[in-house]
């Protein structure tokens, strides 16, 4: 927001990973706008409901447009925005619960259309805003207020899921490295098609995974995340799937489809190919004449 309202401004808890993500988003959209000589108002942030989605209200400096809707529906809204205005840059900001639980149904369809938007998914492995219940990425066996005997469901592997659903750009970031994250987000926005940047963004209040992600040799904790080796070829989908299947979380660009044709281009091409004639309402009425 452009002005600050100390009376009601949203606040994340100290140390929340989302602070890093908002910085990365600002960097990415600011830099990209500057590079293209575009105004920041050409960018729309579509936010989910959760601590994460509040990112849309916490942009510093020149303001992008935003829409902060209902739980789980960022992708349908983004689909409509791009249908209406293919020229806009659409960025999604959502939590793991929002994107992968209630909103999960919307990923596949956008992948199949190759909708030209970039989703930044802030994964803290928990429902933050509703106070710490299990999310789809919470591990099997973890105790939360809704899983008193330990979570009974297997966790989702989001990266593998995106790849199978046919998402044409899949990257993985971490909130502690906002600069690298900004780079991935910007790459995703430049990609012509559906891009997901899945971010490890720990919740200090309900699921503090900083140590688990970083590792702690003294305590014998292996790092839960690792940088994707430089020799990984992002055009190689099988290699990407193999990386995603790793026990630790690969950080970096996993996959980018080379011949990515986004929705709008498909439509334009199909219309041209089938030589659709645009008939006016008057013509159409004439066709109905008795």
């Amino acid at each position, binding site marked *: 927001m452009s*002005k600050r309202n100390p009376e009601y401004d949203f606040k994340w808890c100290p140390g929340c990973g989302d602070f890093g993500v908002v910085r990365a988003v600002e960097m990415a959209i600011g830099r990209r706008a500057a590079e293209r000589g575009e105004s920041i108002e050409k960018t729309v942030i579509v936010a989910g409901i959760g601590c994460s989605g509040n990112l849309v209200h916490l942009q510093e400096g020149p303001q*992008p447009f935003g829409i902060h809707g209902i739980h789980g529906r960022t992708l349908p809204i983004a*689909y*409509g925005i791009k*249908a209406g205005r293919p020229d806009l840059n659409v960025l999604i900001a959502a939590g793991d619960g929002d994107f992968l639980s209630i909103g999960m*149904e*919307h990923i596949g369809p956008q992948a199949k259309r190759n909708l030209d938007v970039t989703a930044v998914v802030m994964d803290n492995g928990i429902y933050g805003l509703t106070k710490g219940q299990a999310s789809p990425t919470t591990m099997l066996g973890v105790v939360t207020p809704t899983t008193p005997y330990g979570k009974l469901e297997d966790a989702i592997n989001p990266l593998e899921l995106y790849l199978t659903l046919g998402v044409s750009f899949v990257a993985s970031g971490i909130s502690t490295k906002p600069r690298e994250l900004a780079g991935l987000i910007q790459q995703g926005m430049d990609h012509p098609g559906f891009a997901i940047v899945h971010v490890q963004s720990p919740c200090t209040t309900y699921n503090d995974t900083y140590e688990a992600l970083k590792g702690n040799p003294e305590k014998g904790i292996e790092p839960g995340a690792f940088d994707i080796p430089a020799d990984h070829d992002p055009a190689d989908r099988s290699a990407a799937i193999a990386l995603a299947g790793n026990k630790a979380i690969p950080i970096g660009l996993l996959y980018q489809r080379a011949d990515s044709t986004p929705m709008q281009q498909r439509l334009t091409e199909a219309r041209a190919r089938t030589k659709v004639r645009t008939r006016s309402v008057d013509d159409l009425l004439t066709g*109905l004449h008795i």
Partner: protein
Amino acid sequence: MGSDLVVRFAGEGGQGQVTAAEGLAQAAAQVGYHVQTFATYPSQIEGGPTWAQTRVSTNTILTQGDQLDVLVALNRSAYETHIGELREGGVLIYNSKDFDEQLGGLSIGLDVDSLARATGNPRAANIIMIGAVAQLASMPADYFRQFIEARFRRGRANDDEIINGNIKALDVGFDAAAASGYRVNPLDPPPAIDRQRVLVKGNDFLSLGAIAAGLDIFIGYPISPATTILTFMEGNLNGEGKFVGQATSEIESIGAIVGAGYSGRKAMTSTAGPGLSLMGEGLGLAWMAEIPLVVCDVQRGGPATGLPTKTEQSDLLTALNPGHGDMRIPVIAPGSVEECWQAGIDAINWAERYQGPVILLTEMGVAERNEDVPRPDPSLVVAETRVVSDGSMGNKRYSGNGLAPFPVPGGPGAYVANASEHDEEGDTTHLPQVHVTQTERRFAKLKLLENGSYEAEHTESPIAIMPWGGSKGAARAAYQILRATGTELGWLYTMYLNPLPAALLEELRRKELVIVPELNYLGQFSGVLRGLGVNAHSITQYTGLPFKEQFLVERVREEIAARSGRLARV
């Protein structure tokens, strides 16, 4: 009554009843008659009890017709189900292949399939039936020959062959009926042909209206009886900046048109009850964040999966209040195919005018029926478009007590369209005073829609009949019969159900009794009217079929007789 002909084709799904009824209507319209069709069938691709009806008249037609002049029964069960509706002196044509016992009354047995095969065109059964009906109604054979010329002359090499085959079939029908010696009341010759008329279905006409008002984006999910709006749009809403998409669910549809409306475009979806039920949360978002969009709900029988192919007017309460919290969505419900055009235009205009969601509430009975209506002139359409922000308000999206210019992404005035309560820039706040101000502002905008037109006749009468939606025709017919037979009764009608035209609401509140015929159990609209301080009482029917005129005549008489102490059913 000599000017009127009602024909029903009844049998099992797949026997071509709908084609026959529409063909008869088309032929009759071609030569200048007014026509209206109606069809009803089960929710399956093959089989099941199906019938279609055509009314042909020298007058404007209000309903599909109560009683049949001709019943074409394609199997025994159709005969048994429908014979009771054949008027005295009416003629039965039955499929003698299926059941050829001796039937009483004026009946003609035709083995249409064999006869069709004999013409060399096994698919000509419909034409044979049309020929027989035309002969019974004394419609000159020439009209139908013209129709066949017009319909089948398409510049193909074998046009002549096809046309001749069909004319032969027509003659077979003519001859068979002539041989029977039966006649129904002969139709008067048609009025002079009005080439400024079109023959159209409700769903198509409404789609055309929406396009004429500037619709840009349509995204929908298939569902009977709304699917034909989606397919019409897929076929016809194209060109620069236009987009049509098939969604993967109604939750995606509503989300998508929220996004499209937010992006500055005119957006619409169509669905039926089950889809509307899934859109409640999304409609709340559109109400809260003030996003212009139109949801067209083509009502069918409810609740749940209900009766997917039957007509009912039972989604009104959901249309007005589709989701939790305080909202009251504007609703426009066309009463006839003719009104669908303007309803389509107004729905788009209203959404733009008050910056919010609008429900275009129609119903299977209007959506799928054919009517001949005056051809509208698209150049006269006034398309309204929201006032766009020029950035002079900074980042403020909302201000004061009403509407503010709409900031369009890409242009100046960046803000957050927010489904949580919010301040002027769209920042979330729960401060009590902000919720009060914003709630009142959202409702105040409805005032911009209170100037809709309405019909009022005999306003001096303390009792009025006021139908809504597709029950208008039967109510109008009943009203005319009642007035003609000396009943003191006023007429009130509007397609603008919420907000009601302000002057109409005043008129309604002055009435001693307002009788509301509606196709649902609860008496939904009369309940809403009572909520608004109107002493309204419903005549309900929930059979999945439209009202009959005579049923309403009798029920209105009863209501008037028992008018005191009217209370709701539940």
